[in-house]
């Protein structure tokens, strides 16, 4: 196994070291201009993704089934650690995939469910009815996505779900202003 000491320059200061690793990838960088007729790599990747998009609806269908199964386990056996993890994970994946798969209006419902699970200090206090409403909303949005008013309806539905969820979270985290600030704070991640 190679020692990193052999591949980096070390400069030692009072309480820290600055290490400049040998840049073995220098050779792959250039400022070569695109040749005439040569595809832009980003456009090429977008086209490859578009070619794959025929599969996205069935992928989202299987994600919805997974979410429904996770919800069923919670309904039957409650918020055990494993059930909570499975439900959160299923919702979290839908949140991340919704826009890529062509169903961006599903992301908010999934995100609201993630927040409900993640930020409730005692998950056994989460009303199953509120979980059901989130899961049913996500599945209905997917099922009715071809409707011309689907996005508007989805936005209305998820806005209300989010309001109810936030109200519940604020109540459950009363006395924890730092948590409430974190829950209600905006994301700091840049887009795209």
């Amino acid at each position: 196994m190679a020692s990193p000491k052999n591949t980096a320059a070390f400069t030692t200061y009072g309480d820290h070291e600055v290490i400049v690793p040998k840049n073995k990838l220098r050779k792959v960088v250039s400022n070569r201009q695109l040749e005439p007729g040569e595809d832009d790599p980003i456009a090429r990747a977008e086209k490859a993704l578009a070619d794959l998009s025929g599969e996205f609806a069935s992928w989202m269908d299987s994600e919805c089934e997974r979410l429904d199964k996770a919800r069923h386990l919670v309904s039957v056996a409650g918020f055990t650690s494993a059930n909570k993890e499975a439900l959160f994970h299923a919702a979290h994946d839908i949140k991340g995939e919704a826009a890529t798969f062509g169903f961006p209006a599903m992301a908010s419902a999934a995100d609201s469910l993630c927040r409900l699970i993640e930020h409730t200090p005692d998950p056994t206090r989460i009303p199953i009815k509120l979980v059901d409403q989130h899961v049913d909303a996500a599945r209905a949005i997917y099922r009715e996505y071809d409707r011309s008013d689907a996005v508007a309806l989805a936005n209305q539905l998820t806005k209300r779900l989010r309001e109810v969820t936030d109200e519940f979270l604020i109540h459950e985290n009363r006395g924890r202003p730092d948590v409430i600030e974190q829950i209600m704070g905006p994301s700091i991640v840049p887009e795209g």
Partner: protein
Amino acid sequence: MVRIDFNRLRFLVIDDNAHMRRILRTLLHGFGAREVHEAEDGAAGLEAFTHYVPDVVITDWAMPIFDGLELTQMIRQPGANANPYVAIIMLTGHSEKKRVTAARDAGVTEFLAKPISAKGLYQRIVNVIANPRPFIKTKTYFGPDRRRNVNPNYVGPERRKGGKADVIKQSPLLEKVRTSG
């Protein structure tokens, strides 16, 4: 325009969601990459990292066995593996400030929030390859320099002790390429 020869890079994609692995593989091949390895959880990811010695690791956060954060901490162990300096891009649906800070403090090189886009992924890869940051090692941290910028107007105390920490000259490859072209 800075360009990367993707076909000379080795990628490792770690995500428990098969759909997302397929998306990432498709995008990377679209960029021109030939060598894309996959793993479906943190443990398999660490094994694949040791076996394939990738140039770039793209990992999800939430995964079974151990997650992307723990995987990053295991990779960022000086002397423990062949390349603790490897570029790590964390691709995740988490985007809260607390999460981004935790990823940064674990030693992640770049953070990319879902939904994924070809442009966003391409930019992160170009940045980690063309403009690598020096690494900092302290008692509590080993990873890419968390100071991405030097603020000339900063007037607070210098938290790094021992002199020149605030004036370390980097040699960004991106600049070299721009000036040499």
